[in-house]
Structure formats: C-alpha cells, structure tokens
C-alpha cells in the first residue's frame, strides 16, 4: 500500500511540475530521466526480479521504435495505435527470444551474450532490408498535434512518458505482491528449491521477458515520437542496452524505486559533469565513469539498498 501511495505521489508531483517550472532544461531533464527510468524499470523486471541479465535489451527497444515508425509511415496507423502495438510487438519478440534461450537453459553470462548477439543481428538486418529504410533510417514527419502524438512543448511528452513509467512501476509493484512475482523471485534466488515446491521456471521466465520487452518497446516508440528519427544503430546499438542496465543496477536490482533513483542519479551526474567540464572534451566522461565505479564500490546493493542491513549487502541474488 505504501508503495502505491508513493507511485501516486510521483505521478501527481511530476504531473503538477509544469505549473511551477517553465524551464525547458528542467522539463527536458525530467522527461529524459523518466525515459531512462522506464528503460531501467523494464530491464529490472527481467534482470532484477528474474535474475536474467540481458546485455541486448536494445533489441526490444529497437522493435518498439521501428514498429512505431513502420506502422505510421507504411501502414498509416495513428501514432497512438502504433504506440500500443509497439509494446505488444516487443513483448512478442521477448517471448520468442525467451522461448529459445530459456528452453535451452541459458543463464548467466551465456544469456547475457546471446541477447547481445540478437540485438546485433537485428541491427545488421535493419541496415540491410529495405522496409526499415536501411541505413538511411526512418523519419516521421513533423505534425504537432495531440492526436498525432507530437507536442509543441516537451511537457506533453513528459506526461506520456510519465504515464508509461507509472504503468511500469505498477507492474513492478504487482511483481512484489503477486503469485507470479513471488515465483519469479523464487526462480531468481534458487531454481531448484522453487521447482521442489511447484514452480515452473521456464514459464515464469517467459512471462518476465515478455513484460520486460513490452515496456522496452514502449520506450522505443516514445523515443521515436520525441526525436522523430531512428536508424539501426540508434535502435539496436549497445548504447540503450547499457543505459538500461546501468541505471537499474546502480539504483538497486529487484526494487520498485531503484531504477528511478538510478536514472535520476546518473542523469544528474552526466548533466552536471557535462555542464561543468563541457569545454574540455572527455573529462566529463572520465568523472562519470569514475563515479560509476565509486558508486558500485560503496553501494554494492545500489542506491535503493542504502537502508538495508549489512548482511543483506553481501547476500542477495546472484547474477
């Protein structure tokens, strides 16, 4: 219950923000942070609650973005319809990848690397086949109207991403308070013990990767609507995968607020360093990278784990 109130508070708080903040920088900052939080939360569903580390979540992101683009440009769907589709398509892709990888019992580094490879395969395909616009990428025309899911101010987009994030967080809350979630975490912590009391690990993992993929897909669709242009390396390149997993891990795996905290911390960090040292190319990223290491060194359980007892710092799930 407390968590639900928290989510509500977040929704209302951010929802009212535009009344007090006009600064485009801050609105944009909030929007991009929520966006990063959505990526992280999506990754967290599979990585944090399911213990399955993916290095290729860009796969789902890319499918979402391209679905959004193709549905509009080639099938003439309304962007809102496309947005809905994007999540389902990516979820289905998740099912496919999961069915393959989990059926053959891949876990740990093996699962991580296979996801990486899947993302890369589809990046190359996207570069090579015509209906994705190949290397030229896809650009949706600039038609700013709510019905067209394009807003003249970032505020509109901020509400869209807020809605998506809240949905992701509600799902996460559900994971913490449902049979499915309990089973998922049981499988993460100990597959054998879980089986002994009636859990089917394969089905549970499938559910998780589908959910995770769906939200990643919505994030991709959102990206396209905001920046209007997508190309294979933006869609399937490693950058998005890394952004998602770093924020999730830094924030705290398998927690409700971790991904948001992680995204916030990392965005503050990168914006700060960029604005302070922008004129010395490189040093900002040096500081960013060092901070990443320092955070891991001192918060092994992530930012959300600060409150936890010492013993819990050291125990907990295995990758």
């Amino acid at each position: 219950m407390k968590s639900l109130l928290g989510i509500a508070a977040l929704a209302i708080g951010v929802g009212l923000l535009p009344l007090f903040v006009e600064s485009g920088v801050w609105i944009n900052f909030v929007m991009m942070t929520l966006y990063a939080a959505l990526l992280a939360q999506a990754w967290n569903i599979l990585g944090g609650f399911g213990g399955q580390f993916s290095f290729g979540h860009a796969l789902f992101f890319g499918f979402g973005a391209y679905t959004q683009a193709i549905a509009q440009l080639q099938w003439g769907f309304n962007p809102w319809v496309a947005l809905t589709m994007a999540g389902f398509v990516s979820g289905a892709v998740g099912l496919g990848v999961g069915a393959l990888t989990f059926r053959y019992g891949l876990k740990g580094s093996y699962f991580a690397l296979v996801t990486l490879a899947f993302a890369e395969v589809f990046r190359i395909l996207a570069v090579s086949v015509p209906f994705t616009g190949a290397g030229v990428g896809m650009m949706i025309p600039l038609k700013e109207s709510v019905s067209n899911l394009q807003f003249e101010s970032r505020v509109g987009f901020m509400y869209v991403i807020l809605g998506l994030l809240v949905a992701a967080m509600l799902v996460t809350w559900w994971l913490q308070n449902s049979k499915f979630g309990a089973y998922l975490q049981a499988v993460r912590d100990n597959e054998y013990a879980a089986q002994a009391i009636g859990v089917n690990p394969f089905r549970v993992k499938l559910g998780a990767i589908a959910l995770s993929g769906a939200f990643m897909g919505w994030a991709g669709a959102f990206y396209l609507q905001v920046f209007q242009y997508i190309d294979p390396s933006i869609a399937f390149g490693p950058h998005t995968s890394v952004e998602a997993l770093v924020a999730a891990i830094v924030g705290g795996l398998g927690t409700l607020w971790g991904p948001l905290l992680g995204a916030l911390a990392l965005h503050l960090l990168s914006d700060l360093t960029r604005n302070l040292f922008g004129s010395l190319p490189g040093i900002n990223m040096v500081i960013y990278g060092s901070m990443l290491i320092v955070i891991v060194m001192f918060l092994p359980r992530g930012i959300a784990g600060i409150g936890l007892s010492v013993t819990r710092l050291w125990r907990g799930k295995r990758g």
Partner: protein
Amino acid sequence: MTSRRQFVTQTAAAATLLAFPMVGRSQPAPVKVGVIHPVTGALAYSGQQCRAGALLAIEEINKAGGIKSLGGALIEPILADAQSQPAVGAAEIEKLNEAGVCSVVGAFASAICLATTQAAAKYNLPHVVDVGVADLIVQRGLTNTFRFGPGYTSVAELAVTNLAELNKSAGNPAKTVMIIHEESLFGSGTANLLQKSLPQVGFEVVDVIKHANPTRDFNNIVLRMKSLNPDIVIPANYYNEYALLVRTMQQQKVKPKAIYSVLGGAASSYKFIKEFPDASSGIIDCNHWYNPKNPRSQDLKKRAQAMGLFFSYELFMTYTAMTLLADSIDRAKSVDREAILQALMSSTFSSHIMPYGPTQFINGQNIGGRPLMTQVLNNDIKVILPIEYREAQPLFPLKS
C-alpha cells in the same frame, strides 16, 4: 606530445574568448551564440574540428571589433557537447536556450542536426547547420533551420554530371562503377542517389557495397573489387574507413581508372595526404571545399595549422557557418531571434571563403551552396572543377 599541446592551445583559445567580456568593461552586452558539436563519443574528431572552426571565426570577428551594428558587441560562444547522441544534442539545445543564446551553430552529423534543429524550433531559435548533409534536415519545414552548404543530393548530382564530363573529355575510357559506402544515413543516402543517377549518364553500376563503422578489414571488399574490376571506384564514407580502404587497394594492387569520391571522408584531407602520400595520390573528390583563389582562405588555413590543426572541411564549414550567422546578426541589428531569422532568410552573404554562388535561402537551404571537385596531385589538393576555380588539370584516367 604535440597532441597535448594542440589540446592545450585550443582550450586556451576558448578560454581567452570566454574571458573577453570581463576584459572590456565598456563593452556592450556580449552576443551569446550556441556552438554545439559532438566533441566526445564516436564523432569526437569531426566535432572538435567543427568547434575549432567556430572559435576561429569568433576570434576573428571579435578581433575585428565584434558586431558593428550592436556597438561592437563581442560574440560569446556557449559551448555544448552532443556526445555523438541525438538525444543529448536535443537536451543541450534546451540548455543553450536557457543560457539565452540568440542563435545556434552546429551540429555536424545529420542525425544530431535532425534532433537539434527540431529542439531549437520549439523556441524559434535560429539554427545554422554547418555540415549535416542529409536533405531531410531542411525538408521538414522548420523555419529556424538554415544550411549554408550543399546537401548530399546536390553534391551527388554535381558529382555525377562532372564525372560524365571528365569521362567524355577523356574519350569515355570508363564504363563501370563500384560504389562503397558506410551504412548510416550519409553513406547510404549518397549511395542511393548515385545508384539512381549514374546509369542515366551511361555508367554501369557493377556493385554497391555497404560497410559498418568501424570496419576492421577491407581486404575482402577490395578482393571483390578485384574480381569485378570496375573502371571507377566511388567511396562515400568517413575518414578511418576511407583511409583503410584506399590503403588496402594499394596493398592489393587494385588500380582503377579513378577513385572518385563523393563527400569522401579522407579524399580531400591534408591529414590523409600527409600520412599516406602514395595511397592518396590521384584521388578525385566531390566535396565541400573553400575558394582557393580567396586569400582569406589561405590565411585561415595558416591560422589553423598554427594551432596544430588540420584544415579540414569540418573546420572551414563551421567557420563559414559562424561568419554567416555573425553577418546576419549584424544586419538584424539586434539579438532578437525573429529579427535574426529574418536576416538569415534575406541573407545575401557574400564575404565568405566558399566558392558559392549568390547566397539565397529557400526553405532554409542556400541554393548558392555547392561543392568543388578536387584531386590529389603531387601531395597537394588541387581544385580541378569547375573551371573558374581550377588550380590544375585533372588527371583522368590515372595511368597505371
């Protein structure tokens, strides 16, 4: 370490620029201009070259007494880093807008320009695109976006007509063409255009090969080239891959009648010629190029080299974009964005170092903008076409 020295001098230059306003107390308020480029990440080199070009222009303008119509107000560059990501570029525009810039110059790469111009449009913030050759940039009806240089369509078209011309004057020695391009927007876009238009002027495109950035090894591409044996090879890619490709051709003893690049990443780069005199010799390029007859371009070149920088197209393209903007601000007689937009739209800017026709912006594109044909001849880059800028006779076909 020269590299470190370069780095220091460059940032020092930036620092002094930023210091200017404090120096002159009596100065009117400085004119803030956003300079946004991908100075870190994959595109860092080009981004930093661009930034250097902008800073050189601003230094020159400020030394010459700033913006006259604003009582000699100095230009204060607000630097921004797009980190080679469109999303970051867009975020940086927001930052520049809050910093109160009256206009923006940037952002080298097409994908980033798409994001920054659109973000700037939300604030009616004038955005001069320095390089960004993708035509999408100026085809979206954004009223704040202006590109002084040519887009790849016009470059490709000109390249094709010029190639036909060269070939005809040499007695049509060349029939077949092979296109090698990098897989992203710029390479693929250019390649598509060439593929369409080359047959119309009587060339047969025997193969089009796309490659990733980075590509570790060009031998198999060159071997393919060897077996298809095209008369002309047309590369459209970035510096690293271009350099590797040409070197590999030399290693594999593949000598087509011409290497005829379109916006070639290295073809008309002094860096490349310096490092690989043999591999580069004879290469023809249809690319952004300065007016060799204009003395200003020569001393700009010297200033750049004095800072340990190569005089690359990124540098003088952004330099020019910056001077164009300064001119418009001067004519606008204000830092009001709308006024600057008007000034840009009506600009007939002529005191620049580019070999362009009369400046006229239509839907944000300067129709006067055009590339030149250059060829690497005895370790220097010489203009071969059009005639009015010709420095040397073209060498075509290459005798081998």
